[in-house]
C-alpha cells in the first residue's frame, strides 16, 4: 500500500488559513474550482421514503432534485454549486442504480452549464455497505461490491468520490457508551485509520483511472455519533469533554484518506476538516448552521471559518412554502457563500473568518478545540508523530484536552461535570503506553474477549 504520511504542517501559521482558499485547489466538474479563491454551496439531500421502491422512482426523484437546485441557483444568480448525492443503500448495493442516477444528474447539470455557464460538479458519497447484520465485513464480498459501485459512478458522471466509512464502528459504539477512553482511541485511531487507508488506496486508484477526484472521508460514524449523543448544553447523554476526545482522534483517522491518495474536498460532515486542512492544505467542505435540518449544532458559524464548500446536512426532498427543501437550503447556503465571497473580494476575509470563529468559540468545548488556531495546534500534535498511527492519535486527544484545560482558565466556562470528565480523560490518556504494538495487542485481546462481533481480520489482523 502506497501511503504518504504527513510529518509537517502544510500551513506555516494558522493565521494563513481562511475560507475559500486552500494550498492545493481542486478543479472538477463543469469549470468548477474548489479552494481557489471563492466558496461554493454544496447541497446535500435525501430522497423521499417512497422513492426507494424501484430504480425508476429513484432516478426520477434525483432528476427532480437536480433540476430544482440548478433552477433555483440560476433564478437567484449564484455562480457555482456542488450537488452531493449521498447514496441510499440500494444505489450502492446495485452499482448500476448508482451509475444511472449519476448519469441522469450529470446530464441535467451539463444542460444548465451549457445554457447558463453555471459552474457545477457532482459529488457521490457511497453508502458503506460493509456493515453486516451480525458483524462488520470490511474486506469480504461487500467490499468488492462497494468498489464496483465506485467504478460505475466514476465512469458515469460523478466528479468527486467520497464515503463515510465504518471501520471501528462497532467497537466505538461500545466504548463511547462506557466512557472507555482507550477503546475510543483504539476504535477511531487504530481501527478507523487502518480501514480508511485500506479502502482509500483503492478508491484513489479508481478515481485516477476514471479521471475524477478522490475527495475524502469523514468520521461521521464515530466522532459525529459522539457529537450527536452529546447533544445540546442541557443534554446528559455524554460529557462534551468526552466528545472532544473522539473528535480530536478523528482527525488523524480521516487524514489517512489523504495519505492514501485523496486530494479533497473533504466531506462536509467531517468536523475534523479544519485540522486536516491545516496539515494537508487540501480544500474542505463543511456543514454547520445549515445542518439543522438533520441535527442541532454548537458551532454553526465557527466551522465556516476555513471552508471551501459550504454545505447542509442531508435534507429530505419535500415541499416547503418557499419551494422544495433542496431549493430552500441551496439558496440559504449560496447566500452564505455570497457573503463569504464578498468578504474575500473586499479584502476582509480574515476579519470575517474571525467573527465567525469567535461567535462560537466559547459556546462549547467541542467548538473551542475546532477554532482554527486550536485546530492547528492539534494538527501539530498529530504530525509530531505522523508516522505512528497510535501516537499521533494519542497526541491529538491529549492536546485537545490540554487546549480545553487551558481555555477553562480563561473565557471557556466548564461545568463541574465537564471538568471532572476532562480530568479523568487526561489522566487515562497520560497513563497509556507509548508503544503502538503493546496498545494494539491489549485492545485486540480485550475486544476479542468482550465483543462477539469484533473481527480483527477486518483490519488485517
Amino acid at each position, binding site marked *: 500500500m502506497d501511503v504518504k504520511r504527513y510529518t509537517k504542517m502544510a500551513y506555516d501559521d494558522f*493565521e494563513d488559513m481562511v475560507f475559500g482558499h486552500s494550498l492545493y485547489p481542486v478543479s472538477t466538474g463543469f469549470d468548477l474550482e474548489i479552494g481557489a479563491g471563492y466558496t461554493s454551496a454544496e447541497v446535500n439531500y*435525501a*430522497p*423521499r*421514503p*417512497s*422513492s*426507494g*421502491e424501484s430504480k425508476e422512482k429513484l432516478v426520477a426523484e434525483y432528476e427532480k432534485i437536480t433540476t430544482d437546485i440548478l433552477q433555483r441557483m440560476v433564478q437567484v444568480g449564484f455562480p457555482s454549486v456542488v450537488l452531493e448525492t449521498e447514496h*441510499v*443503500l*440500494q444505489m450502492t448495493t446495485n452499482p448500476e442504480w448508482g451509475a444511472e442516477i449519476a448519469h441522469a444528474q450529470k446530464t441535467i447539470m451539463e444542460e444548465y452549464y451549457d445554457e447558463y455557464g453555471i459552474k457545477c460538479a457532482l459529488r457521490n458519497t457511497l453508502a458503506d455497505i460493509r*456493515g*453486516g*447484520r*451480525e458483524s462488520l465485513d470490511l474486506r469480504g464480498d461487500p467490499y468488492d461490491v462497494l468498489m464496483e459501485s465506485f467504478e460505475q459512478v466514476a465512469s458515469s458522471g460523478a466528479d468527486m468520490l467520497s464515503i463515510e466509512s465504518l471501520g471501528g464502528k462497532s467497537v466505538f*459504539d461500545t466504548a*463511547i*457508551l*462506557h*466512557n472507555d477512553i482507550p477503546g475510543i482511541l483504539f476504535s477511531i485511531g487504530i481501527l478507523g485509520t487502518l480501514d480508511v487507508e485500506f479502502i482509500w488506496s483503492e478508491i484513489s486508484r479508481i478515481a485516477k483511472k476514471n479521471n475524477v477526484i478522490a475527495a475524502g472521508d469523514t468520521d461521521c460514524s464515530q466522532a459525529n*455519533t459522539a457529537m450527536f*449523543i452529546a447533544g445540546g*448544553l*442541557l443534554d*446528559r*447523554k*455524554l*460529557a462534551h469533554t468526552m466528545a472532544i476526545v473522539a473528535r480530536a482522534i478523528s482527525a488523524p483517522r480521516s487524514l489517512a484518506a489523504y495519505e492514501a491518495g485523496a486530494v479533497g474536498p473533504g466531506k462536509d460532515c467531517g468536523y475534523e476538516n479544519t485540522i486536516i486542512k491545516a496539515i494537508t492544505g487540501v480544500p474542505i467542505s463543511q456543514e454547520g448552521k445549515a445542518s439543522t435540518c*438533520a*441535527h442541532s449544532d454548537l458551532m454553526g458559524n465557527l466551522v465556516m471559518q476555513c471552508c471551501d464548500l459550504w454545505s447542509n446536512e442531508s435534507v*429530505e426532498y419535500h415541499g416547503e412554502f418557499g419551494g422544495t427543501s433542496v431549493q430552500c437550503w441551496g439558496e440559504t447556503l449560496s447566500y452564505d457563500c455570497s457573503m463569504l465571497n464578498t468578504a474575500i473580494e473586499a479584502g476582509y476575509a480574515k*476579519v470575517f473568518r*474571525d*467573527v465567525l470563529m*469567535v*461567535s*462560537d*468559540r*466559547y*459556546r462549547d468545548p467541542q467548538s473551542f478545540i475546532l477554532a482554527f*488556531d486550536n485546530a492547528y495546534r492539534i494538527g501539530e500534535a498529530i504530525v509530531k508523530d505522523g508516522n505512528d498511527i497510535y501516537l499521533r492519535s494519542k497526541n491529538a486527544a491529549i492536546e485537545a484536552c490540554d487546549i480545553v484545560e487551558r481555555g477553562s482558565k480563561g*473565557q471557556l*466556562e*466548564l*461545568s*463541574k*461535570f*465537564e471538568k471532572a470528565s476532562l480530568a479523568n480523560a487526561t489522566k487515562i490518556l497520560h497513563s497509556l503506553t507509548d508503544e503502538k504494538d503493546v496498545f494494539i495487542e491489549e485492545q485486540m485481546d480485550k475486544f476479542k474477549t468482550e465483543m462477539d462481533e469484533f473481527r480483527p481480520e477486518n483490519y488485517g489482523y
Partner: protein
Amino acid sequence: MIDINPQRTLVRYNVKVEQEMTPEEVAEKLFPVDEAIREVARAVFEGDEDEVVESLQNAIDKGKDPLSLINDALMVGMEIVSTLYDGNMLYLPDVIISAQAMIEGIEFCKERSGQEHEYKGKIVSYVVEGDIHDIGKKIVTVLLKAKGYEVIDLGKDVPVEEVIAAVKRENPIMLTGTALMTTTMSAFKDVNSRLLDSDINVPVVCGGGAVTQDFVSQYDLGLYCEEAADVPKIADAILKGFDVERLRKEFHKH
C-alpha cells in the same frame, strides 16, 4: 485574531443551572437504610459488577431471599440512578454501566434462587431492515432493562417477517424500532400493516435519525419517540392501560 467577552453573546446554561450537590452526595441520601440492601444499591449506583455480586452474596448470607433482592435491592439502586439521570445529575454512560451491573446481579439472584424473576413486561426491540445503525437501539434496550423490563433484542437489519414472527411468539407489550435513513423507515409501514392484518394491536414505538412524528403518525400503531429516556416511560404508561391514542397525547411533543 479578534476576541470578545463571550458572556455578552452566549449563555452556557449547563454551567448556570448546575446543581450544588454532587450526584454521589444526592445518592447517599437516597440509599435504603437496611445495611445489607444499602450495599447492593450502592454497588449498582457505582456500576461495579464484582461489588454487586459480592454484596448480594453478603445479603443472602444474612438471610435475604435471592429473588426478593432483585426488586428490593438491585431495582432500588437502579431507580436511584434513573432518578438522578432524570434530574440531570448523571450522564447516559453512568446509567448504562449501572444497568449492566444490575443485570449481572439479576442473573446471579436467579441462579442462586433457582427460580425465574418476574419482569414488569416484555418488549421486542429491533433496527429496521437495511439499516445497521444500532447505537440508539442499544441505548433504548439498556434503559428498558434498567426499569425492569425484559427485552427481546432482535438486533439490526431485521426483516419485517422476522419482526412479525417475534411479536407473535413473544406477545410483547410493545415493539420498539429504530431507523436512520429515509429509505429504510418505510419498513415501519409494513410492520404496522402486517400486525393489523393479524389483529395484533401492540404499540410500535419508532425513533431514529430520519424518523419524524408526522411520518409515524400515519400508521395506526405508530408512536413517535424522540428521546430514548422516554421509552421506559411509554412502557410504564402501557402497563397502566394507555392505548395508542392516549400515548400519542402524552408523548407526541410536536
